[in-house]
C-alpha cells in the first residue's frame, strides 16, 4: 500500500484549516491516479478525486483509528471513482481518450493499462483495491457494498482477464509473427 502518512498529520487535519489542506495535498496525487486508472478520463478522474478528498474531509473527524487511514481513504477513492463511472454521460466513450499525461517505462505497466480497459469498472476497482491498496476480498466487499462472494467472483474474472491479456503480450513479445516467419522462409 504505497500511501504512508504521518498519523500526527491525520490528527491535525481533523480540526480543518492548514492541517486539512496539507493532508488533501498529500492525498490528491494518489486519489487522482487511482481514479484515472479506473475511469481513464482526466475530467472524470479529477471529478472523482475532488469528491473523494471532500468526502475524506467530511468524514475525517469520525475516523478513530488513524493507522487504518490508508485503507479507509483507498476505499473512498475507489468508491467515488465507481460512482462517477456509473453516472458518467452515456454518450462519452471513456476508453477512447488519449493517453496524454501517462508515462510508462515498463511494458508490464502498459499491458496492465490496456488490460484494465477491457474490464468493467467494478472489476477495475476491485483490482486496484486488492493489488494496490492490499485489501482482501472481505475488506473490498465492505468498501464497495457487495457480498464477499461476489467480490471474489469479480476478482477471479479480473485476474483471469489480466493474466490472459498479459500472457498474450508475453507471447507476442517472445515469438515472431507469422508474417515475419514467412519472410524468413
Amino acid at each position: 500500500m504505497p500511501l504512508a502518512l504521518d498519523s500526527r498529520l491525520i490528527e491535525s487535519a481533523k480540526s480543518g484549516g492548514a492541517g486539512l489542506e496539507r493532508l488533501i495535498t498529500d492525498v490528491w496525487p494518489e486519489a487522482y491516479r487511482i481514479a484515472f486508472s479506473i475511469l481513464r478520463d482526466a475530467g472524470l478522474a479529477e471529478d472523482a478525486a475532488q469528491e473523494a478528498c471532500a468526502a475524506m474531509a467530511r468524514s475525517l473527524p469520525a475516523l478513530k483509528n488513524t493507522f487504518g487511514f490508508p485503507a479507509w481513504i483507498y476505499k473512498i477513492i475507489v468508491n467515488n471513482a465507481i460512482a462517477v463511472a456509473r453516472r458518467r454521460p452515456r454518450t462519452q466513450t471513456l476508453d477512447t481518450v488519449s493517453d496524454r499525461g501517462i508515462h510508462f517505462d515498463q511494458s508490464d505497466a502498459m499491458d496492465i493499462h490496456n488490460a484494465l480497459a477491457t474490464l468493467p469498472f467494478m472489476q477495475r476497482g476491485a483490482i486496484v483495491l486488492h493489488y494496490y491498496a492490499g485489501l482482501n476480498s472481505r475488506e473490498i466487499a465492505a468498501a464497495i457494498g457487495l457480498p464477499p462472494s461476489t467480490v471474489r467472483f469479480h476478482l477471479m474474472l479480473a485476474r483471469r482477464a489480466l493474466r490472459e491479456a498479459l500472457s498474450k503480450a508475453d507471447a507476442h513479445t517472445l515469438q515472431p509473427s507469422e508474417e515475419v516467419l514467412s519472410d524468413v522462409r
Partner: protein
Amino acid sequence: MFDEARIGAALETMIHGIDVPPVPMFGIHQRISQGRPAPRHAWPYSRPLVAIAAAIAIAFIALPSMSSAVVQTIEARYRAALQTLGGIAPPPAPASLLSALSPHSASISTAQSRVRFTIVPPAGLPKDIVSAKITTTPTGVYSKVTHSWHVGPPMVSFSYRRADGRGFLLIADRYDPQGERPSKYMFEAMAPAPDGRPVLVKHERFAWRNGNQIMTAVEGHDISAREIDAIRVAMHGTAVPRRNLHAPESGTSLKLRLITKP
C-alpha cells in the same frame, strides 16, 4: 506466466506513471461545504461552439481532445461569423499560437501567481453548484497596429457545474481603464446552415470590476441575468459600462480566448 506479484508491481508502476494535475483546493473546499454532488451530466459545451464578441473579446470553446485542425476550423467559423456581423475579423491565428492557448488547472494561489491582477474570487453563486474548477489560460492577442498575433497574459476561468447538469463560466482578467469597453453581447456561432451562412445566437454579456480585476459572464440557458447580477452584488463589484454592438471600435488589439471544457 503472470504471477500475483508481477501484476501488483505492474499495477503500481502504471499508477505511478500517471501525471497529476495541481490540487484544485478551491473546488474541493466548495464540495466540502456543499455536501455530495448531484449526478453529473454532460458538460453543456460538449459540442464545439463558438462564442463571439463583436469586437474586442473573442472566445471560443473547444474540447481538450480536439486536434489543432479542428480548433482551426472552429476559429475560421468565428471569423466568418464576425464578418457577417460587420466586425473586423483578424487573419487566422497561426497553429502555433492556438496550441499555446491551452488551459492549466490551478488553485487560487497558483492562479494568482500567474496573473498580473489581484484575483477576487466569485461570491454569491447559485445554491445548486456541485463542482468548481479554476484554470488559467493564455490569451491570443492580435495587434491592429503590427497586424500580428502573439500570446498575451493569461485569464482566469472559474467553471461551475450545477446540480441539473448545466455549467457556466466566470472569466476574470486584468482591468484596463484605458482599454476598450467590453462588448454588451456575445454571439454563439453554431454549425453553419446548409447554405453555408453562419448561425448565431445572441447572449447578453455582463462585466464588473473589483480593483484591477474585470469579471465577465454570459447569460443564457446555464445562468440567468438575475443570477449573474447576484454574483456581482455579493462580490461588491462595480458594473463596467459596456459597448453596444454597433458602437465603433477604438482599441488597438483583439483578444482571442480559447475556453476549454473542464
